[in-house]
Structures are given as structure tokens and as C-alpha cells.
């Protein structure tokens, strides 16, 4: 009965909270608030939301809704809070505050929002302390976790996020764990993956070719002994198997390269802590924060010249990828071995990372000398993320474990649920509904059959878990991308988005830009709307549409993809067939080009000359990335690219020591109403300087300065003409740190506002998010 005066002043409310609120200790936090404030009612997971129904004094209820925002657990991200009347009877006075059982879908309330899967969290400091405390019952237990840390996305099968929908469901909690799980005052109150040596997962050890004999601590000891003896161990990490070896042992790193069929692409190195990281690379405050951040990405750093590391870890570059331990098992390995460890994806060549135990043993049989696994099943594959600091801010290069599939905003909401299928390389997909975009984890090159399967598996998994049923599918214009072909098999409405529009839109959208902006897309290759290949484009754009304002001059790609794999061919393409604007064209380079031509096999030079003349398999491209490749070859930096972007990265590394280099000559022409960057004067001057024996590093730096100066000039003119000062910089070439820093400085000095990708990669890993942002805006427009 509500007859008393006290009850008359009571207020009852239903509060629905959306965002990253599951798997981050949100219910325990609400529970503690409710108890502390003397409220009656309950909190529960409801679909992807947390729902609270509570009653108390008007003042207490006001404070509750305020503190939900201000005091939320560090990993929680509140995206919307809706307050209304209780769905049923108000909670009874004096009934107390409780955590109650999760509601099953169909969800109530904000059900146009996708359910959100929490990303994995690196081991927290309290759990690390327990891990190394001999008195603790989880001493050296590799699966220690709490509400602040541990696996999430990699073990989830469904929502709401409960132990019963994770791969932990097969482990029945022991009495001690149950008590912690149920105690609202405990750090492990409702920590769904809670485990201990008595009841949780266990390590397994299998030597290559042998049979699994050991489990638990002996398994760990066997792995440590093998690593110490110079072996390669496949370690079951958070989101998949990793290949691990001693990063200071030249012989084992070289062996890993041979076995993994990865001759030159740098390996990531795992170190115990920031001090150890600082011994190998230059770690400023921003880099340190990124290394120690909860997602624990691989952070790209400048290596110290005096680093004690095998040279084959990152040959030919002074960029070094370091990461700190992301899981208790990594803490134990680094503690026991006390040296930096190579930690690279457990795969061969460009296949996706192995997750299944039997599959790993099968696929990595020729690579690893032993397998350190365990019996906690990985439900979804997540490779390590890669990030760097650009212009003082963290910027993702590869978005996977720890970041995906956390939601991102869409500045213009998608009126219908949609799927954006991305590009071909560095593949990701995006699911979107309303103003929420969920970008799936990086998988790799779709041309690999295993990657294609990983893509469709992830898509099926995330579609089911998030409840987003796409009514529209968004794809690139390139008909040959396997993602485009996949889109054509889905019988829903299809929208094609131009590759570079998607690139710049990915940058605009993550910064919440809804109006007009200048988009600078410097890229390898993407198909333009005119059937030619683009990649050096300045667009006047908004999220919905774009107009091309400027481009790089075109050059033929002799042999198509063959020219991408061999920058020397690309240089020949420029010398023999660059788009000409007047009589200073490269075709007249003559004697200047002779030393370069003499350096290459005569048959190749003759063949490419004929191919360009006859137009045999020589698609034309206005690409910035290809110009960097050509310059790398002309400067004798790289004739071949062992991995994507190798030549450009080497050119950048060479230029790094020469700050303040003056730009080379450059010229802007006009063709078909477009401003066109004619690189002939730049390249001719480079060849002259080479003849005069100028330092190659200085020339590399001058080339970077040229592209930056030219771009600033083009943008300044365009900004004045079109009345916009925002410049979104994106595309694979924008991973060039030297270039992007010069652009940010130059554009800012010119009074413009440059924006760069941060949460979304500038490379093709960001295409799917850009496609989603564009399609949402187009659909909203009707």
C-alpha cells in the first residue's frame, strides 16, 4: 500500500542504458550505487542494453541518473540513456536492490540499436598482482580475470552477455568462484569468464609431431624451455594462435621467416613493460599511453639504434612494432623468459590467424616446434591490432583485438540496417543501424580462400549476435573485388560507393563532419567512377556525394598488378608513358634515365617499352602510391616490394633523417576541368640530382616535401573557391608518417583544418566504415 507520506515522495523510474555496457562491470556498478543510495529495485542485462527499474526519493533518483554517467566503470561507453516509467509495478518499498536474471530477446525499448559485443580487455593491474602473488589462489593461473579485464568478444556466442552464452559455459564454477561471482562487493561480481585453477580452463602442451602429454604448469614450463632453447612455439592467445620465439636470437627469427614464408615484412615484438619497450624504441608519453592502453595494440615506434634485437626482426626499416602483454599467459611467458619475444600471427603467409586447436596443429605443423594451447574455445577470430601515434594522437593501422567490435558513431544515421562489405585487401566489413556502426575485425586479403571464409564466418556471427539484419548492402565500384562479388549474391538493395569517397568519408564520419569538406585520398589504387584507376585525388565532398577537383597525372601500370609488386616497372611506366602536359615530359628524360635503365635487365626494359607503346595490359592510374613506388625505384631504394607498401616505407625511412628539405619543382596543369599534378618536373629534377650524386636520403625527404607543398597549394585554392576549410586526409599513402605530419603542419599553417583517421585505419581497413557512412547519408536523403 502506498498510503504513507514517505511513499508519496517516492519516485519510480525505468532507465535503459545503451552502448558498451555489458562485459565491463556495469551491472555491479549499478548494484553498488543502488545499495549505497538505499534504492529499491533491480538491474539486468536486456538484449544489448542494461535496464534498471528503481524507486527512491526524487533526489536519490536524480543523483542515480547523473552518477550513471559520471562514475561509470572505465571500460563502459554510454551511448544513450532513456528514462521513463517502470514497465510494470514500481519496486516495493524496502524490497532492496538486486541484480536479476537477464532478459532474452526480443528486446524492449531501444530495440532499433544493435546489440553490442564488448571487445576483449587486457589483464588489469589487480589481476597481474594476483598472478605473481604466491599467496593468492590464482598464483600463476593463466586465465585470471575480473570485471575490469579478460576475454569478451573472442568468447561470446550471443547477447545478453552472460557466462551461459560464452565458451566459459562448459566450466562449472567451483564454490570459491561462485562466492566471488555472487558477492556485489567483490571485484569478480558477475565477471562472466571467472575461473581458477580448481574449476577453469587449463593449459595444454603438444610438441611438434608428438602427443599432448602435459597440462597446467608443466605445459608452461615445457614451452618456456623450448623457447629458451631457441625454438618456435605456437601460443594460443586471446583471439587466435600466435607464433612466438626469442626476439634476440638471430637464428630462430631467420628460421621463423623461412617457415612462415614471410621473407621481409617486420615482426611484432612483445615486451614485459614500458621500461623494456624503452630499451628497444623511442617511447614518448603518447606512445607509452597507447602501449599500456586496455586494447594493447602493437604500437609502431622508431627503433633505437642500440636495440638488442635480432636484425631480421624488422629488416630494412627503423620502425619497430612493440606490444605489452594482453593476457595472463603472455605475462607469465615474458616473466619466465625475461627477454623480448617475437609475437606474430599464427598463420602461413597471408592466411588468417588460426583459432581452432586441431586446425592450428595442422596448419602450423611445419612452422612451430611446439603448441601451447588450452581448453577455452575461441569463438571469434581476432588478430592483434596495430596502432601508431600521428601528430600526437593515437591512430589505428589495423583494427582488431581490443577495439573491434566496439561501436562507432555515424554522423548521419542509417534509416535502414545495412552491411558494408569493404574492399579486397586488409578486409573489414561494417554493420550499421541507426547512428551505430559496428566494424568487424581485420581479416586480410580476400583472395585467400581462408580469409574469405573468415569474413563470412565473422559476418554470420556478428549479424546473429548484434541482431542487425541488413536491408541494404554497400560495396566498392570495383567489379573484381571478391567483396563486391559477394555483395551481388545477397538479394537486398545494393549501393555502390566509390573507393576514395569511402576513404575520405571514413575520416569525415569519425570526426562527425556532416557538411562539405575537402577530401584528400592518397592511395595505391581504387576504381574511379570513370573506369580508370584512381589514387591521387582531391575531392569536394560531403557524406552523400563528391566531385573530383584534382588528381595526380596518370601513368601506365605495365602488367597491372605486376607493376605494383615491382616498383622498378612502375618507374619504367612513368618514364615511357606518363601523361604528358608539355614538351618537358619525361619521355625527354633521355640520358638522365640511362643509368636507371642500364641497371635493369635489358629484356625487361625492352618488353615494358613495347607494352606501354602497344597498350598491352597497361591500365592507367592517377595514383599517389604508385608515384612513391616509382621514386623509390628511381632512387635505388627498392626495385621489388616484398609486401604491400614496402618501397614507400623504405623511402620514408630514408627521408626521416633529413628534416627541413626543400621541395623539388612541381607543376599543376588543367585537364578536363581538373587540376592535375604533373610529376615530370619533380622526377626530372630527381634524376638530375642523382646524376650530380646528391644524397639519396635528402632527395627522398625533398620528394615528401614536394608532395606536401603541392597538396597544400591545391587545397588552399580549392578551399578559397568552395568556401570550406575542413580537409579530410585518408587512403593508404596517409600511413606515411612523414607525409601526414607535413600535411597537417602545412594545411594548418595555411589556415585550414586538417583531419586524419584515428579510430579507423586510413588504409583499406577503413573502407567499409566509409561505405556505411556514405550509404547511410544517401538513404537518409531518400
Amino acid at each position: 500500500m502506498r498510503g504513507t507520506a514517505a511513499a508519496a515522495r517516492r519516485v519510480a523510474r525505468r532507465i535503459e542504458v545503451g552502448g558498451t555496457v555489458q562485459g565491463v562491470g556495469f551491472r555491479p556498478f549499478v548494484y553498488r550505487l543502488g545499495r549505497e543510495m538505499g534504492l529499491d529495485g533491480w538491474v539486468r542485462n536486456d538484449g544489448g542494453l542494461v535496464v534498471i527499474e528503481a524507486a527512491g526519493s526524487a533526489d536519490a533518483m536524480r543523483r542515480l541518473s547523473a552518477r550513471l554517467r559520471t562514475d561509470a566503470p572505465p571500460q563502459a561507453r554510454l551511448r544513450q540513456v532513456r528514462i521513463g516509467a517502470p514497465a510494470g509495478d514500481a519496486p516495493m518499498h524496502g524490497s532492496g536492490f538486486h541484480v536479476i536474471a537477464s532478459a532474452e530477446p526480443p528486446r524492449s525499448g531501444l530495440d532499433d540499436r544493435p546489440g553490442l559485443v564488448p571487445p576483449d580487455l587486457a589483464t588489469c593491474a589487480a589481476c597481474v598482482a594476483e598472478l605473481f602473488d604466491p599467496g593468492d589462489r590464482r598464483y600463476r593461473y593463466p586465465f585470471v580475470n575480473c570485471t575490469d579485464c579478460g576475454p569478451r568478444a573472442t568468447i561470446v556466442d550471443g547477447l545478453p552477455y552472460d557466462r551461459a552464452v560464452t565458451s566459459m559455459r562448459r566450466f562449472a564454477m567451483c564454490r570459491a568462484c561462485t562466492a566471488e561471482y555472487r558477492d556485489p562487493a567483490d571485484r569478480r561480481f558477475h565477471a562472466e569468464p571467472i575461473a581458477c585453477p580448481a574449476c577453469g580452463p587449463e593449459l595444454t602442451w603438444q610438441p611438434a609431431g608428438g602427443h599432448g602429454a602435459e597440462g597446467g604448469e608443466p605445459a608452461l614450463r615445457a614451452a618456456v624451455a623450448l623457447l629458451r632453447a631457441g625454438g618456435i612455439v605456437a601460443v594460443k592467445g586471446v583471439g587466435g594462435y600466435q607464433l612466438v620465439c626469442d626476439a634476440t636470437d638471430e637464428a630462430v627469427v631467420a628460421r621463423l621467416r623461412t617457415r612462415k614464408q614471410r621473407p621481409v615484412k617486420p615482426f611484432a615484438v612483445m615486451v614485459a613493460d614500458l621500461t623494456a619497450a624503452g630499451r628497444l624504441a623511442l617511447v614518448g608519453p603518447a606512445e607509452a599511453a597507447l602501449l599500456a592502453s586496455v586494447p594493447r595494440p602493437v604500437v609502431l615506434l622508431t627503433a633505437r639504434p642500440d636495440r638488442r634485437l635480432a636484425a631480421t626482426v624488422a629488416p630494412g626499416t627503423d620502425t619497430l612494432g612493440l606490444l605489452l602483454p594482453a593476457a595472463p599467459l603472455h605475462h607469465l611467458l615474458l616473466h619466465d623468459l625475461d627477454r623480448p619475444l617475437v609475437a606474430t600471427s599464427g598463420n602461413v603467409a597471408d592466411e588468417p590467424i588460426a583459432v581452432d586447436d586441431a586446425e592450428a596443429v595442422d596448419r602450423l605443423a611445419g612452422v612451430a616446434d611446439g603448441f601451447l594451447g588450452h581448453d577455452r574455445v575461441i569463438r571469434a577470430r581476432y588478430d592483434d591490432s596495430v596502432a601508431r601515434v600521428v601528430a600526437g594522437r593515437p591512430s589505428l593501422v589495423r583494427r582488431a583485438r581490443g577495439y573491434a567490435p566496439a561501436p562507432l558513431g555515424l554522423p548521419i544515421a542509417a534509416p535502414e540496417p545495412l552491411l558494408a562489405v569493404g574492399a579486397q585487401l586488409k578486409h573489414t566489413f561494417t554493420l550499421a543501424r541507426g547512428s551505430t556502426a559496428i566494424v568487424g575485425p581485420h581479416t586480410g586479403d580476400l583472395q585467400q580462400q581462408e580469409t574469405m571464409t573468415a569474413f563470412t564466418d565473422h559476418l554470420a556471427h556478428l549479424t546473429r549476435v548484434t541482431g542487425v539484419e541488413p536491408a541494404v548492402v554497400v560495396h566498392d565500384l570495383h567489379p573484381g573485388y571478391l567483396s563486391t562479388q559477394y555483395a551481388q549474391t545477397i538479394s537486398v538493395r545494393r549501393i555502390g560507393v566509390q573507393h576514395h569517397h569511402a576513404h575520405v568519408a571514413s575520416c569525415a564520419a569519425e570526426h562527425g563532419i556532416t557538411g562539405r569538406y575537402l577530401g584528400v585520398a592518397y592511395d595505391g589504387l581504387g576504381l574511379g567512377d570513370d573506369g580508370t584507376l584512381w589514387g591521387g585525388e582531391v575531392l569536394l565532398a560531403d557524406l552523400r556525394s563528391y566531385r573530383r577537383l584534382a588528381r595526380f597525372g596518370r601513368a601506365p601500370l605495365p602488367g597491372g598488378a605486376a607493376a605494383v609488386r615491382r616498383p622498378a616497372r612502375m618507374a619504367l611506366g612513368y618514364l615511357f608513358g606518363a601523361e604528358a602536359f608539355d614538351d618537358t615530359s619525361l619521355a625527354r628524360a633521355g640520358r638522365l634515365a640511362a643509368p636507371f635503365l642500364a641497371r635493369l635487365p635489358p629484356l625487361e626494359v625492352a618488353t615494358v617499352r613495347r607494352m606501354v607503346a602497344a597498350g598491352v595490359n597497361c591500365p592507367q592510374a592517377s595514383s599517389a602510391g604508385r608515384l612513391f613506388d616509382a621514386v623509390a625505384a628511381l632512387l635505388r631504394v627498392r626495385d621489388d616490394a616484398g609486401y604491400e607498401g614496402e618501397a614507400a616505407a623504405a623511402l620514408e625511412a630514408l627521408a626521416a633523417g633529413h628534416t627541413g628539405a626543400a621541395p623539388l619543382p612541381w607543376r599543376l596543369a588543367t585537364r578536363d576541368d581538373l587540376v592535375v599534378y604533373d610529376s615530370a618536373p619533380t622526377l626530372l629534377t630527381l634524376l638530375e640530382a642523382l646524376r650530380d650524386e646528391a644524397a639519396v636520403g635528402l632527395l627522398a625527404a625533398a620528394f615528401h616535401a614536394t608532395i606536401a607543398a603541392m597538396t597544400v597549394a591545391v587545397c588552399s585554392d580549392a578551399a578559397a573557391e568552395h568556401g570550406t576549410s575542413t580537409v579530410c586526409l585518408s587512403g593508404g599513402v596517409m600511413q606515411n608518417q612523414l607525409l601526414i605530419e607535413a600535411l597537417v603542419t602545412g594545411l594548418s599553417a595555411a589556415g585550414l583544418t586538417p583531419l586524419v583517421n584515428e579510430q579507423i585505419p586510413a588504409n583499406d581497413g577503413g573502407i567499409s566504415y566509409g561505405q556505411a557512412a556514405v550509404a547511410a547519408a544517401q538513404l537518409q536523403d531518400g
Partner: protein
Amino acid sequence: LGHGGGGLLGSELVECLFLPAFGTAELAAAPRDSVVLEVGGVRLAFTTDSYVVNPLFFPGGCIGDLAVNGTINDLAMSGATPVALSAGFILEEGLDMAVLDRVARAMGAAAKNAKTRLVTGDTKVVERGHADGLYVNTSGIGLVAAGVHIGPERARPGDRVLVSGAIGEHGVAIMSVRSGIEFGTTIRSDSAPLGGLVAELLAAAPQIHALRDPTRGGLAASLCEIAAASRVGIVLDEAAVPVPEPVAAACGFLGLDPLHVANEGKLVAFVPDAQAEAALAALRAHRYGAGAAIVGTVTDGHPGVVVGRTPLGATRVIDRPLGEQLPRIC
């Protein structure tokens, strides 16, 4: 219009334009080299093809024998024995009669070599500049024996995939002449009639499920079409595919995938595992099948998708070439 490459765009034209316009059930069936019709109790194979090759003469052949062999091969891919062929010519005004004479004699010789006859024809002359010298169309009819059922939709999991010899020669020969690029050795077109080879193959392996001559779009296009039509997966052992060293070298220079390059005297056969060895032996015993090899297996995994397994153990999706070579690399 860029629909000539024999890849994805060509099949789109059939699906989106001709099929709705013609409304014939036979066209709606899986794409095949020739159609088989029941006529008065007899099973008749029927096909037509036009030849617009440039240049008209090339190492290993000319437009004439290509037109005869191509149509014979299209009949043979339904398991038919060729009966008779027609020939239609579109000639550019001012064409040198000696050229036409050489082409006609090449056609006669090719028909004789294939033990078939050219029995009817037609000639039209168009104004100068309206045709590139000369175009040829050939049609053909053939007889299909009772009990022979071959079609692109009939491949089954477990089948072995055979090719009758080296691939890539015709396309590289044409491109080499056309562009004036020399690769050291002269690569000759493999233009050849395959009726006799198919007869030998059928005798050794009566249960052949599917046959294809990998012309435009190369071996890749043929495999993709059969994988799609039969709703099966194909795993190709890339190391087992016979690619002559000069072809491989030329393709390396040109940036082409040998699997995408046209052939004019080769077939790919889908044969139940139990008859695969017999089929291989029959192919190798014939002059046009000496270089035959087993190159792959049909699976029930990844239906509609052809996967190549490289010697290094990695696997890649093999798809049809597009009309233009557009790199997918970013």
C-alpha cells in the same frame, strides 16, 4: 561496350539482355558450348561462333582453321561427333583476294583434318573501315550417341579434373604478334580439333560428367562456370597445371595469369575418380592430348568457388578475368 573478354561481363550480357529478349529455355540453362536438341529421335548438337581475331595470321594458325576447329570443339564438348559445318564471311571492301584464298584453304584443310565437311555458307561485303579485314562465323551440327550425358551442371564432388595439355599458348601467341613483343622463343597457337580426342576419351571413360574447351577467359573461366553451374567447389593443384616455360615467362612479363589466357586446342574434363586414370591414359595416347594431366578435384565445400592450392600451401580464390585487367591491389 567492353564485353569481349570472355569473363564476367560476357555472361552478364546473356543473362541480362539476350535471355529476356529471346525467352528460350535452352539459353536459360547453364552456359554450354553447344546445345543438344531431340529431333525425330536423334540427339543433335548445335552451335555457332564468330571469329574476329586480329591479326588474321599468327604462329600456329589463322582465323580460318580457328573458326573450323572452334566450332568442332564446341560440338565435341557436348560429346557430339561433328556432322557438318557452315561458314559465313563478312569481308571489308578492298580485301586482298589472296588473303581470302589462304583463309578458305586453311578452313578446307582443317575440316578435312577433323573428318568433317563445310556444306553451306554466305558472304557479305561491307564498306571500307566497317570491318577489320575479315570476320568469319561458323555453325555446326553433330550427333550425340545414346547414353552420353555431358553438361556443365553435371560435375559431382569427388570428380577429378583433367586438362588435355599445356595451357596458355594461343592467347600468348596472339598477344605476342599483336604487340610486337618477342619473348625469345616463338610461342605457337595450339589450335586443334578435339572431336577425335573426345571420342577416345568417351571410350575409355564413358561416365564423363563435364567437358569444356577453355577458350576466352582461359582455364579459370571454364572452371568457374562449371563450379557455378554444378554448385560444387573445385580445388586446383596449381603446380600440376601444365604451363610451358615460355608461356610462364611471357605471362610474367605481361602481368597475366596463365589460367586466364585463351586456348584453342585443349579441353578440361570432369571425370568420376574411378575412371580418372583410364581417362588420363586415353588422353595421353592421342596426338592432341599428349600433355594431359590431372589438375584438381571437385569438393562439396565452398560451392561455386574455385580455389587454387599453391606449392607453398596457401590457397587463393581463382575467379574469371574481368573485361579489362584491373589490379585489385590497393
